[in-house]
């Protein structure tokens, strides 16, 4: 009997010892997944439009979203129009978008290639090669109000004349609110008085004769969701009434031929308050392939995914920056504007 009890006592002793050891437990450290900070460039090179890019830098996912602005970063765009450089300018959006504005007065041309280079003393150098697609045409075929599943919608038909050389289209609708901007002319450029108020005040105080004008500028762009049942749209929901931020279409089914696409825009709020300037910008863009691939991934992105228990796997956003992140898309844009009545 005793010889059987002794091993059992050892067993109990071992058990108690282990439980005792557990009392000295430590927190299980998880290693920080963060990599090095990198340059971020975001925006589009639109044929015939001045260059407006945003530049920033990445942050650790454990930073709690506390971004730092790359105040010493310079961006240069070179191509057929030469090389233009710009320093980052902090504007009223910088603190919420975590980027600086980089504006260049030169306009890219359709079918041309450009190199964008960003240099920062801490983050290094990043560059991207962008090709602006050749021209195409998109015409408005028809618009009409309709009701679908009880919802008031504006049905829009657009015909795209697809040149053989292009193949990636993006359709977006943006609500834009207009405002008057006071500008002054100095050293060959029209400048915004609100952004360069120090210069404007010094010129006025010095009694200089400054040309001035008021421009209407549309800002506060808000995307209007789109709905389509078009079978060739890559991100359509094939019958499900799901809102899209943008329509993504390839010419796989109509290469070189005209193609008419029908889509719907929610018709609520298509009017302006007294004294308010509002318009709806319908943009049909032919975009570079790498930009299209980026938008395809971006459309799948759940902005809240990352550390949760979502069933859907994560989305990797591609980039066309070497040594950096983000996307600068090459775009040839056709734009239709509806101005709202009071």
């Amino acid at each position: 009997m005793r010889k059987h009890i002794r091993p059992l006592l050892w067993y109990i002793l071992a058990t108690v010892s282990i439980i005792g050891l557990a009392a000295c437990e430590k927190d299980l450290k998880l290693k920080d997944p963060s990599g090095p900070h990198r340059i971020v460039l975001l925006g589009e090179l639109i044929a015939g439009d001045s260059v407006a890019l945003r530049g920033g830098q990445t942050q650790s996912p454990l930073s709690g979203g506390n971004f730092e602005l790359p105040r010493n970063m310079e961006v240069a765009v070179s191509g057929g129009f030469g090389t233009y450089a710009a320093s980052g300018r902090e504007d009223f959006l910088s603190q919420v978008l975590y980027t600086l504005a980089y504006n260049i007065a030169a306009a890219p041309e359709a079918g041309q290639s450009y190199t964008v280079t960003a240099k920062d003393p801490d983050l290094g150098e990043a560059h991207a090669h962008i090709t602006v697609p050749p021209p195409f045409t998109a015409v408005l075929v028809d618009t009409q109000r309709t009701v679908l599943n009880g919802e008031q919608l504006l049905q829009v038909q657009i015909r795209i004349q697809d040149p053989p050389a292009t193949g990636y289209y993006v359709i977006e609708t943006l609500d834009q609110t207009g405002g008057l901007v006071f500008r002054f002319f100095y050293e060959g450029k029209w400048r915004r008085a609100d952004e360069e108020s120090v210069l404007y005040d010094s010129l006025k105080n010095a009694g200089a004769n400054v040309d001035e004008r008021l421009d209407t500028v549309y800002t506060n762009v808000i995307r209007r969701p789109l709905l389509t049942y078009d079978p060739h749209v890559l991100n359509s929901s094939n019958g499900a009434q799901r809102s899209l931020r943008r329509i993504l279409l390839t010419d796989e089914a109509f290469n070189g031929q005209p193609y008419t696409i029908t889509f719907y825009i929610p018709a609520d709020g298509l009017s302006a308050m007294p004294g308010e300037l509002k318009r709806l910008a319908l943009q049909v863009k032919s975009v570079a392939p790498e930009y299209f691939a980026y938008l395809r991934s971006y459309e799948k992105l759940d902005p809240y995914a990352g550390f949760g228990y979502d069933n859907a796997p994560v989305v990797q956003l591609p980039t066309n920056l070497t040594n950096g992140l983000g996307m600068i898309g090459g775009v040839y844009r056709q734009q239709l504007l509806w101005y709202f009545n009071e």
Partner: protein
Amino acid sequence: MGVMWRFWLTAAAILFMVVSSTAQHLLQRSYIPSGTRSTVQACLEELQQQTHITLSYSSGSLDTRRRATLPARQLTVQEALDLLLKGTDVRIVEREDKILLVPADPGPAPAANRVLNGYLKDSLSREVLIGAVIYVPALNLSAVTNSYGFYSISLPAGSYQVVSAYAGYRPDTAVIAPENSGRHDVLLSPVALMTEVKVNNRRQERADHIHLTPADINGKPALLGETDVMRTLQHQPGVQGLQDGSSAIMVRGGDPGQNLHLLDGIPLYSIDHFYGLASVFNTDAIKSVDFYKDAYPARYGGRLSSVVDVFTKDGHMEHLGGQVNIGLLKSSLSLDGPLIKDKAAFMVTGRRTWADIIWRPFDPSVALDFYDLNAKVNYIINKNNRIYLTFFNGRDQFGVRNDPVDARIRWGSSMAGIKWTSVVHPKLFVHTSATYSAFRYETRSKIYDSNNPTVMDYYTGTSRIQDIAGRVQADWYAGTRHRAEFGIKYSQAFFRPVAVDYAESLQGAFADVVATPFQAGELVLYAEDEWKATDRWTLRAGLHWAAWQGKSFGYNSLQPRLYTRYLLKEGHSLYGAVTRMAQFLPLLTNNTMGFATDFWLPSNERIRPEEAWLYSLGYAGRYRQHLTYRLDVYYKEISGCVTYNSGAAVFDHAANWEDQIAQGRGWSYGAEVFLQERLQPFTLSVAYTLSKTMRQFDALNGGAAFPFRYDRRHNLHLDLEYQPRPHILATAGWLYMSGEAVTLPDQIVPDFDNNLTGSFGSGVPFTYNYPSWNSYRLPAIHRLDLAISFIKKRRRYYERTWSIGIYNAYGRKNIIGIMINYDDNNQARLEGTTLFRYIPTLSYRLKF
């Protein structure tokens, strides 16, 4: 290719070393004969006494009355036998732990002119015994009972001793006289509690699969004291759990949906309760379990990675009895007994969780519960025919009410079947079945208006599968060296992969979405022959052909199955298998973070079947009588693996659910070691797996290969049993698994759309940058589980067991999920979610 060559060369080298190092022959043992002249019989008996070697021979082939003299000096057993058998037509064969003296020229197989056949049964309950062995030592012939306890063995003329054996039962020996042939049913008596473990442990595992009995399952420490067949399987090399605490298994780089789970031969689509806290297989209802991870017989198909074939009890033919199990998580009640004594019996078991009752006072917003019910009736029509009726139903529910939203998920399986077994001829056993199986997954959301007592449905998403099947299989015991199995199966499956029904009040904003329901038929033909080519070499070759046909698609797959085993010497064998499997109904799994969900997606015109080739090689050996070991290496290649496409969720895009699927390939290779050392009263088991598992999808991770989410380099189970007295069993189990491979962002990036439009409206102002899939390793999982059982047996049927213990005894924080939390200083840090630490286990079982 280079990796493959290195893998196989290393495997071959390891096996060669093991084979070389374990060479030890019975025939080389030495002894000193007495030197007196006597009969051959007396000389052989003297040899057995002195060397403790069992000799087996038949007086029909050896004249044992002949007189012989052995020199009185040291001889090896080989030398002594050579002298005794000089001039005879008898040769010496070393087999397992004995020496056989068999006719020298086997020539044509012995003229088998009679067939011994019948059932092996438990002497008390009359339950048939699956996988029991019937053995004729003199002829070195053996047969194993099939899934219905039937055996058939052909014998030549003569009188033979026949031994019947099964783990946990006293072996039965009978002499079959020359005039006896035909039916020979055997009743085996269970051994008393005192020697049960000893007999269990002396069982020889068959190299092609693992055979488990309830004693094996109940002996393992388990979470909350809830023993479970799936948790027991996790203690086998090559098998790993999903996450800490989960009962789901992953076998050799496959995902949980690639395991074929059969309950009385009927496939179950969902086997998890509580996201894997327990399986639907109620231990109280189980008679035995066969587990295959490579050498799949041709009759199995439809899954890539393993077969878990669970057989439930038939019911006691003599006595009404039962079992009550009370645990911390759930309780169960089982009853079985005769409907007509020795003719018909029933078995019914039911389980229900306590969790909702225990949880409710602490957090009424969470609802979680499950139940399952097994029932079986069988009727012996006559000595050759029997019918079985089987039924199973299991349901789970998990819900969270977080005002104003009440979200619930329900899922469950049902199945029913009727089977008829018939001994058509002493050499031919036929079983025919018709079965129904169904799986349903439902996610439902309601919105409560706090100012209005009415409840508004929001939406209901469902995924459903039903199938009906018919199967006929014949087991043909062709002769002394051949056993063939062939069959045909046809099933018709009805799918509604995804449907989302929105409430009427929301119809303006949302439209219902129903993926088109469709049907698919599967025709399966299979045949295999197990050929005992020589006394040492067994070869099993089979073919499984399956065709999957729908209205607008069709696939077929020819799957060779090859298994061979070579007996090197006593207790040592080398075995290998090459198999191909196909799966027409893959389970959609998430390769990165997140809970696994049960979406069964049938192959159709857009989703091709999953297919796998598996190559394995193994060595099983023994050192003396107390140490047994197995060493296996394998390489598996999978094509057509399914997973979610980036950012996809099936219920969000229900109508075009196929678009949410990415298909790619996977591969896994590894080495497995199993050791069991028995030094009474201790038994130590070690199961270790070294493996690597990868996946590659063109549509994911830029097309680059990445580690599978459950690619665990090391997986180790150490189990120590201590049984100082027959009624006390203490166990300690230590688990170590490498951490999961997960995908985490390394940076956050200012959001594109907000910057493009110059507005801030999409909610989150940044996006995550994921450098590579599954490149972040969670910390390793390890824990110690301790348990002790006190068993009390009274009279013939009464037995009660108290089990207490602790799960994760040293409180390791094993991580099952990750999130970012902020400390008091608003400093963010990565934190893991841990569920099971210092969990006490307590259960009470009463058998009556």
